[in-house]
């Protein structure tokens, strides 16, 4: 599904990603953990072209993201992204937020898009908020709308960039449970997160990144329970 070969990313002189090799198989849930500045968000954003790739190869669902000839919007239509700060469109009601891309990007008819949107909003537990504006929703509600908005495009893989970091602790659970449902339904997911509990329970694989490289990766129980590398141990001891 996602194949990354020797990915390098530079900001001017500063190299943020120093040669990442990774594969994400279909229906896999991968959690990226690591300290700030480790490059995990940058890596995620390279997967759908929000960050440009300095060198290396990134293939998503058969499309070569790093190839200039690839139309990045084709890739983005198949990849859903959920942001730390939700980024809902403030001037549109919830239902319109979810319907916007299907109608204007995928060319789906309004009635069909609306039906799908209502179904998705019900699925994330917000069917009574369809006509509210984002400003009137709590953080957790906004994030769930954001998930529905990304799902409306029928993506093959969902990217989550610290989806719960901006939420009050007691609201984090409602978003994580939606993500857990998605995982159970077989969605391929790559999640950058600080929620170790979620990573341990839901992820098929955990990846620890530090200083722009993958330091350690594998089964979550093993990465969390019996880390092989010193840096992994260091990081985990600080956050757990």
């Amino acid at each position, binding site marked *: 599904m996602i194949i990354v070969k020797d990915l390098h990313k530079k900001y001017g002189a500063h190299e943020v990603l120093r040669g990442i090799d990774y594969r994400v198989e279909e229906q896999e849930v991968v959690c990226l953990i690591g300290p700030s500045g480790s490059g995990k968000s940058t890596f995620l954003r390279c997967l759908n072209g929000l960050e440009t790739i300095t060198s290396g190869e990134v293939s998503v669902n058969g499309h070569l993201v790093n190839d200039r000839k690839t139309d990045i919007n084709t890739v983005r239509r198949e990849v859903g992204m959920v942001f730390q700060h939700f980024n809902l469109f403030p001037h549109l009601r919830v239902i319109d937020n979810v319907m916007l891309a299907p109608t204007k990007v995928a060319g789906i008819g309004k009635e069909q898009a609306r039906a799908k949107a209502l179904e998705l909003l019900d699925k994330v537990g917000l069917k009574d908020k369809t006509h509210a*504006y984002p*400003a009137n929703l709590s953080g957790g509600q906004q994030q769930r709308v954001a998930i529905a908005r990304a799902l409306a495009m029928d993506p093959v893989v969902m990217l989550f960039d610290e989806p719960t970091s901006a939420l009050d602790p007691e609201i984090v659970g409602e978003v994580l449970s939606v993500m857990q449902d998605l995982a159970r339904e077989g969605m391929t997911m790559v999640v950058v997160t600080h929620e170790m509990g979620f990573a341990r329970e839901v992820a098929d694989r955990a990846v620890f990144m530090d200083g722009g490289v993958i330091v350690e990766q594998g089964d979550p129980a093993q990465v969390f329970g019996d880390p092989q590398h010193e840096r992994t141990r260091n990081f985990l001891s600080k956050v757990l």
Partner: protein
Amino acid sequence: MTFYYGDLAPYFGQMLAALWTSIYISIIAMVVGSALGVLFYLGKASSSAPLSRVSSGYIGLFRNTPLLVQLYLIYFGLPELGVNLDPTWAGIVALTLNNAAYTAEIYRAGFESVPHGLIEAGQALGMRRAVLFRHVIFMPATRNVFPALTNQFILLFLASSIASIIGLPELMNSILNINNKTYLTFEVLSVGGILYFLTSAVLALGSRLAESMFFSWGVKRHA
């Protein structure tokens, strides 16, 4: 010092008609000028270097020279090039061109203030630039600059008085004419001033009303 406001009464209708002229030339200049302004902003922000430089040059020129000088160039200068505009048209053209430069800058602030995250969310959904601009950027940007735009309209309305100098028959011109005829200087200036003031006050109230009507989605009303 005695005041003869009563003697001003027969001229009041004339003043109101002239006020209407001030208002409608301001509306024309605002509407056409704002549309031009958005174009100039897009020009300035475009990736084509010559287009960007020409747009920046236009904006810089019209924002750093007085409206009066621009008006003189159009009314007295253009005839040398064969273009003869009467005072009304010269005034409208000058106000429009001037306004375009200011609204271009207002829109720049507006478009640049749209949170980058919104643009990324649109991009992540596969939106191309045209779709992004129309559905994601334009409304939040306009909401951000709405107060500045309505303020600009009020300034434009007050600035329309400058066209009196070339004889455009708006309110200021009417005031000066009445003064020449009747020498009721204090009376006509004060009544005229109050007319200007009341109109700008109404415009200010109206814009606040419009803002709460069209842009209520920006206000947090979470229970």
